């Protein structure tokens, strides 16, 4: 009976550690949420303890959507996330499908071209010059075209396609189906879990887009959400520099953080089943 006692102690320890991990993951975000809906005066008065605000208001949200270019940047981010991800998925599928077909002559040459870019790249400056030369500077396409395909995601789709049963292709080809028909009518519908995974990776990448924007864009109306949120966060640090600027309060900053993170936080749990598998497929090639 000593076993039962030990086992219970062990379980308690396990559950306690898990509780700490779970809370550590979400409490910072909950705190951000709490600050964002608490009247600013109350935040100051309570010395910051507002995990459970007694009164709450959406004033900070109204203010950031009213004054900053947050609304415009939200539209930009929505556009690059939807259109960008659609383009990503189309091009990645078109690249991964031929590469998944072992009979394709010279397949290894193309595969090498794809994989080599994961090992070596021209770097920041030469890439910037190419983006400039192709006329993308200061257009919204600078956020979409230069990152149109990720080799990592090509490999995830390719290995998923390779696991589809060969007979499927045989019989479809027997019926005279073209390759394009095969891809879009048979392969794509059967590979939905892989597409969800890769789509999530691309989508989150676009939603969190920051670097391409500060590298390639100067037009303020094109800046995506993350850049505008960063500007709001930086303003307190350098607020003294320009007194003309509206100084965002901490509540407004946290409201901006919420706006920029909530959509992703809401979406990812629904796709979890798929992406854990996709992550494993990808890390084989790591």
């Amino acid at each position: 009976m000593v076993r039962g006692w030990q086992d219970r102690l062990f379980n308690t320890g396990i559950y306690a550690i898990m509780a700490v991990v779970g809370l550590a993951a979400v409490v910072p975000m909950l705190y951000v949420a709490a600050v964002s809906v608490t009247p600013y005066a109350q935040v100051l008065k309570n010395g910051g303890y507002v995990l459970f605000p007694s009164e709450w208001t959406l004033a900070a949200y109204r203010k950031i959507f009213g004054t900053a270019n947050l609304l415009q940047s939200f539209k930009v981010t929505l556009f690059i996330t939807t259109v960008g991800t659609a383009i990503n998925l189309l091009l990645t599928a078109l690249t991964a499908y031929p590469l998944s077909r072992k009979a394709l002559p010279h397949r290894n040459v193309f595969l090498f071209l794809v994989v080599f870019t994961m090992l070596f790249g021209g770097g920041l400056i030469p890439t910037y010059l190419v983006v400039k030369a192709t006329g993308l500077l200061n257009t919204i396409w600078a956020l979409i075209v230069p990152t149109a395909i990720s080799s990592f995601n090509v490999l995830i789709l390719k290995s998923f396609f390779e696991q589809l049963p060969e007979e499927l292709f045989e019989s479809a080809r027997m019926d005279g189906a073209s390759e394009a028909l095969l891809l879009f009518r048979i392969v794509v519908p059967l590979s939905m879990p892989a597409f969800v995974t890769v789509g999530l990776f691309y989508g989150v990448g676009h939603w969190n887009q920051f670097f391409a924007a500060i590298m390639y864009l100067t037009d303020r109306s094109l800046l995506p959400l993350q850049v505008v949120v960063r500007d709001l966060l930086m303003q307190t640090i350098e607020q003294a520099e320009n007194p003309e600027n509206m100084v965002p309060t901490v509540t407004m900053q946290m409201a901006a953080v919420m706006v920029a993170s909530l959509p992703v936080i809401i979406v990812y749990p629904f796709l979890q089943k798929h992406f854990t598998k996709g992550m494993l497929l990808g890390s084989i090639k790591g």
Partner: protein
Amino acid sequence: MKAHASETGTARMPSAERIARHVRLLWKFKALYVMLIPGMIYYLIYKYVPMYGVIIAFKDFDMLEGILRSDWADPWFKHFQRFFDSPYALELIRNTILISLYKLVFGTAPPIMLALVLNECRVRWYKSLVQTLSYMPHFLSWIIIYGIAIILLSQDSGIINRWIVEAGGKPIAFLTSTDWFRSVLVGTEVWQNLGWGAIIYLAAIAGIDPTLYEAARVDGASRMRMIWHITLPGIRHVIILLLILRLGHILDAGFEQIYIFYNIHVYPVADILDTWVFRTGLEQLNFSLASAVGLFKSAIGLLLVLGSNALAKRWGQNIW
């Protein structure tokens, strides 16, 4: 398969006929090649042209003249020499490797321990709840995490500093002091990667032969002993493999994170090769010097990745 057989059968034919047959073979796959066209154009323009563009590291790049007509640097290693003669070269390389190593040292164990703990949990809903919550930070951008860092750690409004002050201490400038900045980088990275990093170890644990546990239970081993003698040895090869692969990326210290988090006060401990290249190239428009340093980093990085991959292959090939 059939295609390959007929191809080898053509070895003795006259060459014109052989080429014709090969073309016919390619023609058979024309639809697939057409599909590859857009992707290959993308790779060519946005991946391979920039690789060719690294030659500006050996030129005195002039914006007006363009890459091809700019003069060659004299001597050809001029920009590399300028970098290595400068006082910051050593500092940048040291910061890059140190930050990377700290992340490796402090970031490896937590996901493994989380995977072990999750694996021992017998309550399914609780396990999947904690797992789902632990993934969340992975999906947050560094901007968001910086926002969280401000509200928790900043010197005047951060809640942790309020606690310190209330407890009678002096506020700590976590985000702007050279003593604390690297800890902030490592801490936020560990926080972001904890749950996500555990996925791979959980999968490895799931692959352990369950009869091993049965046998141990019959022998009266405690669960702690089973973790130590069965689970950990069972995922040892995955742990080592991932460590080797991470070592291959030792020069990637986390460009995005550092660029977003750092400020002029912490440059001495935070400035890495990537951030320096970014500032020198795109802010000071010194394209050739920045490209030279970028090329130096990519070249060493390529060698490290190839080396670590070879090592990983020798160690344990395909484990899944």
